[in-house]
Structures are given as C-alpha cells and as structure tokens.
C-alpha cells in the first residue's frame, strides 16, 4: 500500500484561534522526497506536525491515501501514525538510558506481541545499515551523528510508508550531516518510502525531488528540484 498525500484548504490555528498556517493545495505522490524550507518561525514544522495529524484544531483536509487523517478520532489518528509514519526530530529525542537497539526498537513496546520480534529485527538491521554495530551500548555515550542514526533506525523500524523529519541535520556538524543525508536518502529511495523533511540544510534540500517553501504561514511556492 502506498500513501500519496493530498492537502486541501488546511488551516492550523494557534490557541487564540488565529491561523498560523494555511495550505490551499498540496499534493505529494507516494515515494517522493520532499523538502520543506522557509525562514525560522514561518510554519515549516507546523506543516510537518499538521500532516502527521498532531495539531489539534487543524481544519481542512489532509488525506493520506484513502484516509482523511483530520477526520479520525484521536485514538485512530494515533494508530494511523503508528502504522504509517516514522518521525525524526532535530534533537533526536532518544531515551538516554536505553541502548541503541532499545531506542531503535522503541515502537515494538506498544505493538502487538506478534509484531514485536519483526520490529526489533528491522531496528537492528537498520542500525547495521547505518553503520552502528555497538548496539547494546547506552546512547548517552553516542555522538550527535550516531544518535541521529539511531533515530532514523527507530523511524524505519516498523517499516512505515512515510518518513517525517524535522530538521534532521540541524544538530550535526557538516561531515556527520552529509553522511546522514546519504544514508537516509538511500534507505528511503531503496524502500520506496515517502520522505518529507523540514530543513534549512541546502545539502539535504538538494537531494529532494521537490522543495516546498513556507513563508509567513503560507505554502508559497512549490519548486521541482528533480525531474
């Protein structure tokens, strides 16, 4: 099952009710790599979280495949995220006391018993493909680059259709960022997943199929990067 994205008339309000992001129309075919750029505070991350169904109060239509995510109840929306999305955050958000394998296989803890072994196995394979072999070590002793690799392995462990990344290279030095971009893009392309990455990092945006700009709370222009 692939999940093309179709957004129509999306409006995300702040707690006082004023719209902080509006998207009239946005379509992303399944399996494409899309960058989201824009000035700080313009609403890039808001767009990412709204697409993940994390903004309560968002209006409009966010359709992933046949599923209108904003119309789902909180529990169903959470379950949809668990099944279809992998998420990567700027500052990794790992459990410091868990090992790399423990963090990468985190989502197995709330999956059905029969699915757990598969998730754990994929988490270990993901870590290996990302060059992390010392998986029993607690991530507290890992470098930033290594941590973000663990986060990528975690995002992919349950074999999601879509990877949502919020500034995945912002906390890394150049070398580590470039290495991560290479590995992440390769993994996503090889598995035919959709990647939507919010970033200021031109090295990352250059590797995307398309780049969407968000300026002053509006998805302003849609640039095709690759044919």
């Amino acid at each position, binding site marked *: 099952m692939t999940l093309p994205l179709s957004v129509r008339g999306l409006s995300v309000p702040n707690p006082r009710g004023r719209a902080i992001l509006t998207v009239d129309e946005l379509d992303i075919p399944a399996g494409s790599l899309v960058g989201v750029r824009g000035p700080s505070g313009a609403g890039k991350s808001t767009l990412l*979280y709204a697409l993940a169904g*994390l903004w309560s109060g968002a209006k409009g239509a966010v359709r992933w495949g046949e599923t209108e995510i904003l119309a789902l109840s909180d529990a169903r929306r*959470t379950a949809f*995220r668990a099944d279809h999305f992998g*998420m990567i955050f700027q500052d990794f958000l790992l459990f410091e*006391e*868990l090992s790399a394998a*423990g963090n990468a296989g985190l989502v197995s803890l*709330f999956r059905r018993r029969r699915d*757990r072994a598969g998730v754990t196995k994929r988490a270990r394979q993901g870590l290996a493909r990302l060059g992390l072999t010392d998986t029993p070590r607690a991530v507290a002793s890992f470098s930033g680059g290594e941590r973000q690799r663990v986060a990528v392995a975690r995002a992919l462990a349950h074999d999601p259709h879509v990877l949502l990344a919020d500034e995945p290279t912002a906390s890394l030095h150049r070398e580590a960022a470039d290495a991560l971009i290479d590995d992440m893009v390769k993994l996503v392309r090889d598995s035919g997943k959709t990647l939507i990455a919010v970033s200021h990092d031109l090295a990352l945006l250059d590797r995307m199929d398309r780049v969407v700009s968000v300026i002053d709370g509006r998805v302003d222009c849609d640039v095709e990067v690759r044919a």
Partner: protein
Amino acid sequence: MIRDGWDGLPVLTQELIICGALLLPLVVIAALLTRGYAPFRLTRAILRRFLWANVMFVLLIAVSVGMGIGLIAQERGLRQGMAHAADKFDMVVSAPGSELTMMLAAVFLQPSNVGLLDGYAYNEIAEHENVEIAAPIAFGDSFGDAPVIGTTAEFVTYLTDGALEGRLWEATDEAVAGAAVGLAVGDSFTPSHGIGDSAEEHGHDGVGFRVVGQMPRTGTPWDRAILIPVEAVWEVHGLANGHAPEAGDRIGPPFDAKFFPGTPAVIVRASALWANYALRNEFTRDSEMMAFFPGSVLANLYRIMGDVRQAMSLMSIVTQILVAASVLLGLFILTRLFQRQVAMLRALGAPRRFVMAVVWLYGATLLTVGTLLGVAFGFAAAAALSRIVTQRTDILVTASLGWSEVHLALAFLSATCVLALIPALALLRQPIVANLRS
C-alpha cells in the same frame, strides 16, 4: 450468611483475603494498563534517568509510612508487653483502695503507700481450699535501682517456673536476684530504706544479704527486683517475723496471725481457673479487703486508653493522607520532567494507554519500593523504641509486624497508586506539539 462464612474462615485466610482486597485496585489498574504492551523497559529507563530524584522520593515515602507503622507496632508491643508482665499475676488481694495503684505496686513494682492486710486475712486466703499459692508481698526497701521485695520461696519458684540459677534461700539473710539487677550468686548487699530519691542509704546499716540464686530473665519489672524472705523484711524493720518465737528459724508459710505484721498485697494463684471468680467475690469485702484480676484492670486501662489509640490512629491516617497528597504533588513534578519524551512517544504513535502504563508504572514502582522500605523502617523504629522502653521499664516490649501494619501499608500503597493515575492522565492532556518543541 456471608458473615457466618467469613467468621468460619481461619484468621490467616481472613487476613490474606483483606490484603488481596486492598491490593486489588493496584492489580486491576496494572492489568488494564499493561495488557498487550511491554512498557516495563521504558519505565526502567525513566527510573534510571532521574535516579536521585527518585531515591529522595522513595525515602520520603518510606519515612512517612515507617512512622505510621512504627507507631502502631510500638503501641501494640507495649500493650502485649504489659499483658505479659501481668501473666503470672492471676489475682491480687489487698486492703481496699485503688486497684490501679495496687496493680502498679504489686505487678509492676511501682510502690505507693497502701494499707496492709493482717495475718488473719492472710491465713484465710492461704488456707482456702481453692488457693494454690498465696504469696505475701512486702516492699519498701531497695538496693540501688532494684526494689527489694519480701515474699515466699514458693512464689519465687512459681515466678521462675523452677528455673533458678543457684538455689532458693534457706536463711533470712539470703536473697534471690532478678536477671537485670547486676548481682551475681555469691555477691552481698545492704538494702536502703525506701526507694529511689527518698531512699535512706544507711537506713539498714549492719543488715547484709547474700545472693544465693538468680532468676532467669522474665521480661517483667521483676527482672530488676531482689527477692528476700518476707520474714527478713519484717525483721529488718524491727517487727515480728510472722512466726511464734517457739517456731525457731522457720521461713515461709504457714504464718502465725498473731505475729504477722501485715502485708500490702497477697498474690493469689487459684488451684483451677474456674475458682478465680468465686475467690474474687469471697475476698472482696467492704472496708476489709479487695481482690482483683490485674488482667481486668489492664483491660479497663486499655479501654480508656482506646480513645487515645483511636486518636493516634486518626492522626496516623490524616498524616498518611497528607503524605499521599505530597506524593501526588511530587509525581506531578517528576512526570513533568519527561513530558518531552511522552510527547515524542505520542508523536510516534504510542497509544494513550501505553503512555499511561509507562508513567503509572513509574509512580507505582516508586510507591511500592517506598512502602516496602517504609515497612522495614517502621519495624526498625519500633524495635529501637522497644529496646529503649524495655531498658527503662523492664517490661519486655517486642516489636513485631502485625496484620494491622501490613493492612495500613497496603491501603496506603493501593490508594496512592490509584491517585498516581491523576498525574499520568494530566500528562496525557499536555499538547503534543508544544511539548515536542519545548
């Protein structure tokens, strides 16, 4: 019918059922929250992350639970110790007066000025067909902290169940010392007239006693007493010695009423249990003498003190409620420490019930460890207090963990674990996106 069925159960079964019922909410919550998930690894990670905060929190719970439990255990220990001290004293006959004063004097060796029973009264008691032992008790002298008590050899045998190191006295200058007196067989001493601060140190100069026997430890104030023949007490005070001159050096009953100077109390042991009530009625006569059961006097005392105990229990419960409120507040603060992780879990698609399970297990673990540690603290505190009380009063107080303490601890644990759902729920109400960005 349910009542009959319940009453028919063995005590242990009843107690275990109560424990099970108290733990039921905890088990039900744990089962409902964790069913189908594996939250324990994450809970362990959170516990390790805030290790010192968690240790402090556990100690706080342990101290408060320990105080509640220690108080109850100590109170019961003291009550049992006093009852044990009165075990050997089925009935006391004395001149009319306060039963409590007389009991404190005769059983707990806290002498007061009391009236005396004469020889005729004593002989009537001693010769009664249902009386097995009638021991006169004469007090008023001391050696150091140890009261010197005049009585009969028969009573010493009864008090020690025959287990005596050395032998009983055979002359009026021989004595048997309690286990805690500090006098060994072969030591000599001169008693002072009076007891405590008012004792006249040289009141009985020239009078010497030699210790020929030592009683084993009984866990009663009698451990600190020195027992001498009652005749010796009378003689030391220049009185007749209870026997006619022609009786020679006789020690012990029977006594001649005409030469019997009087005794403040007679400890009576009936030949059969059933005879006790009849004897009490027989020996209770207006303005002549009174008979009472020290056990009943103690029971009355506890009944009066029962109100105090209830007040103490209430205070203990109020304290526990306050502690539970603090625990709740503490959990609110602690759970705030990992609200970003919770937001991340939610963003990754963790169901609310899973997140609840992780956070609640965290709180429940702290509460469980704190409560268990608190039970140990309480037991240790009660044991330390018991040693102090035993040292000061010679009433053997033993701290033991009873079912009421277990129930209190389990009730506290169960109630606080239910309350621990509130911080977990509150954490789930936090906006995910705002916490991801914080």
